[in-house]
């Protein structure tokens, strides 16, 4: 551990706090994935790790390497931006396909597909 001895105390404390906070938030999200009852409530739990966990741990990594190499480092911003952009897309598509499957099986507690109201133009034509 040669490189970590070069890290001064004023940088080590924020790195530790960011790392521990990010990992604990990720663990909370995963426990929610384990414990929540229905699929649609379970869909919300892992986003805790995908937003706050990723941001905090990437910030810790950025701070550590920026202090060690004595220059600004923005590589981890790439991961943050990518995860923040892609997680909602993935989970919305997954929720949509789960809703589709539940509707086909005719499960209770799933909203029906709304039929479009007959508009004024249709009645005029008929």
């Amino acid at each position, binding site marked *: *551990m040669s*490189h*970590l*001895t070069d*890290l*001064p*105390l004023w940088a*080590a*404390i924020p*790195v*530790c706090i960011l*790392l*521990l906070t*990010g*990992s*604990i938030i*990720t*663990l909370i*999200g*995963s*426990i929610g*994935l*384990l414990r929540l009852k229905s*699929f649609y409530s*379970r*869909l919300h*739990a*892992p986003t805790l*790790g*995908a937003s706050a*966990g*990723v941001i905090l*741990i*990437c910030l*810790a*990594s950025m701070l*550590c*390497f920026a202090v*060690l190499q004595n220059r600004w480092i923005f*590589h*981890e911003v*790439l*991961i943050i931006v*990518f*995860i923040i952009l*892609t997680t909602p*897309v*993935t*989970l919305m*598509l*997954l929720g*949509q*396909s*789960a809703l*589709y*499957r539940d509707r086909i099986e005719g499960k209770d507690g799933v909203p029906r597909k709304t039929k479009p109201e007959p508009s004024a133009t249709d009645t005029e034509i008929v």
Partner: protein
Amino acid sequence: MTELFIIWSILLSQIILGLAMGCALFRMVKGPRAQDRILGLDALYINGMLLLLTFGIRTANTIYFESALIIALLGFVSSIAFSKFLMRGEVIE
């Protein structure tokens, strides 16, 4: 002193992330339906990516960052493909 402090906190956060991966893996194995398994896989690859980032801090090696980026890219594509498969029954129409 500082070194000991940061090494222990990195180790602790790695253990916590390992536990989170275990929770996601349990949901992936147990999950009552296919969408639960896909959700567990999605959470599992994000937790694994975070674990690789902490390994990168520990060893000061940039190869871990690149592998984390690749896991993020491929995990997104695989989750989208699984969701499309659930909805349509085929991946590419």
